[in-house]
């Protein structure tokens, strides 16, 4: 196994940003668990029982706690952990004009539900969505913190559209809003941006719409961009996905028994690929043997210099202890591979 990475497009881009990452860089995919205390405080603030400033203080403390945790286990790129976000849709719906965050509660799977917002008017940017918290978080550490946004297609698809004539029209109007957010992040010095798009595999026939949206969304930015996907089949769109102007695909794998990678055998891509080797939806902590097996499948599909290791998706549904253990297992997998 090579100890020194080959020059890849992703590594060149990172180098141009002053970032050098080791072989098999490891990073969590996104959210981390909130403490019961923080959840309770969010509830109280939503009912005006506690001041929002107190929640803000508590969110920062929780973010810092997770940043230290990620530093301790030696992850290469850090995440904020979404301490200030209710969920990946509501947080955006609350901060974009045209959404009615009220919507209603719907089930996503098993016993998990979310409040699905409705689009009831023309969407428009009204305030920073993620740039403010990212800036605060990045100041907490010398490591690189990736900024994470929900993508335009998923935002449109996971909301009820009561205003626009089509999904395409809604996506088209969401792009400039997210672009404005990316501009704020770029101005603040962000180096890695992850865009969560679990819905991109929902309708392969709409991929041209997604491609057009991303060309507009990311034009001219210099940061390294990750596109994260989970819980859908990428096989039908993998080839056209190569035209997306992103540097890395981050893909859920462990939860689906590495089915996509096993099916594709060898991924034809010049982009970096972060493979989910930690199942975010299982309480069971992966043993080194299980991780070894998953890494073996990942390495058969992705050239080592392009391979990153990650969690399948955010760990928000795990307990704090489970998430901490899973982060450690992820970091240790990378460290073992490099030794």
């Amino acid at each position: 196994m090579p100890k020194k990475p080959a020059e890849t497009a992703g590594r060149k881009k990172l180098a141009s940003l002053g970032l050098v990452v080791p072989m098999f860089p490891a990073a969590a995919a996104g959210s981390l668990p909130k403490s019961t205390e923080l959840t309770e405080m969010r509830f109280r603030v939503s009912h005006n029982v506690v001041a929002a400033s107190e929640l803000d203080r508590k969110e920062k403390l929780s973010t810092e706690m997770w940043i230290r945790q990620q530093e301790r286990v030696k992850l290469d790129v850090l995440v904020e952990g979404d301490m200030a976000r209710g969920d990946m849709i509501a947080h955006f719906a609350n901060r974009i004009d045209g959404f009615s965050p009220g919507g209603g509660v719907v089930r996503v799977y098993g016993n998990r539900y979310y409040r699905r917002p409705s689009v009831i008017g023309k969407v428009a940017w009204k305030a920073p969505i993620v740039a403010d918290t990212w800036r605060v978080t990045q100041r907490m550490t010398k490591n690189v913190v990736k900024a994470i946004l929900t993508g335009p297609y998923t935002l449109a698809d996971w909301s009820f559209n009561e205003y626009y004539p089509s999904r395409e029209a809604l996506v088209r109007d969401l792009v400039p809003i997210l672009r404005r957010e990316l501009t704020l992040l770029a101005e603040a010095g962000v180096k890695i941006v992850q865009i969560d798009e679990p819905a991109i595999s929902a309708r392969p026939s709409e991929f041209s719409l997604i491609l057009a949206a991303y060309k507009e969304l990311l034009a001219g930015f210099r940061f390294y961009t990750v596109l994260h996907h989970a819980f859908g089949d990428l096989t039908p769109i993998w080839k056209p996905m190569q035209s997306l102007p992103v540097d890395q695909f981050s893909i859920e794998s462990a939860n689906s028994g590495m089915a996509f990678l096993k099916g594709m055998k060898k991924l034809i891509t010049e982009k970096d690929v972060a493979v989910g080797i930690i199942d975010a939806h299982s309480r069971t902590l992966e043993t080194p043997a299980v991780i070894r097996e998953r890494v073996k499948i990942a390495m058969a599909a992705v050239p080592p210099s392009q391979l990153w290791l990650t969690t399948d998706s955010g760990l928000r549904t795990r307990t704090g202890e489970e998430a901490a253990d899973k982060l450690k297992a992820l970091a240790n997998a990378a460290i073992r591979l490099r030794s």
Partner: protein
Amino acid sequence: MTLLQVASIGSYPRTGDEKDHQRYPRALGHFERKEISAHALRDVEQSIVQEVIREQVDRGADEVTDGLVTWSDPISRFCRNLSGVKSGGLARYFDNNFYCRVPILPAKPKLSTPVLADYNYAKGCSNRPVRAVLTGPLTLARHTRSESKLYDKLAARVALFTDVIACEVAALAKENAPVIQIDEPALTNASSEERKLAAAAFAKLVAAKGASKIALAVFYGPVFPIVDYLIGLPADILQLDLSVDGSAVIQRLSVAPPRNVLGLGAANGRSTVLESVEELLFLVRPFVDKAPAKIYLTPSCGLELVPRSTAMAKLGRLAELRTSLSQPGAPLA
């Protein structure tokens, strides 16, 4: 005179904005953490079934379902009838933001007895006919995997699930279920080979139905391309999603009304936009005017993908449509 009936055809939101509506998710959470017994969870489940049936009736449904309240999802629910099935990862269910656990089949799954408790309970607490709902063999086969060579081909899994669902159909027929609905959303994007498999499977289910009526429900996609195929199947009731290409489907049905009773899925079960009675009239009137003996007015699919308040409003709107259609000379939009 056409008999017009409003029917709920599948899932119904098990939770809602009101605190009391959230008692089932809370109870499931307590159960998962071993804080309450299975018996206590069952009590809560049954109270929810009672509640959703009452709500459907209050909103004007002539035929109800148990809301599929106890289903974890439409796939793993029926793998409970097979021994040795492992629970796999999450996979998107069609193009919805809803996910199923993908069951992984063993080499020799054993068929256990059908699960009738849910249906019998619902029947006991409803003064309206309860439609029993089962997932069809093609849809089940598409959403399962196998580690064994015996079931790695789709056709083998369709055959396995045909046996599973035929047992359920026979058991429900024995309980005198008036309507047994087979959900086959996979037909909306099936290949011709898959359609052949589904047709053969459906014929076996029909053979087990006894005196019950059997409905075939197709949703989550365009129906027009397969409408002639569907008409050719031996279904007593064809339950069609009209939310995608409804006008084309209605036109086709109006040209030569089929012998099957039609369930017209006119109210979009995946959108919070509430259709006006005029819109619904415009859509279904051309077919209703052909005066078949019986028509069901229904949502396009189960209602669990919309909030509870929307589910109630959609059923209520279908009841208004029934009233409008029943009045002589009701205006067309």
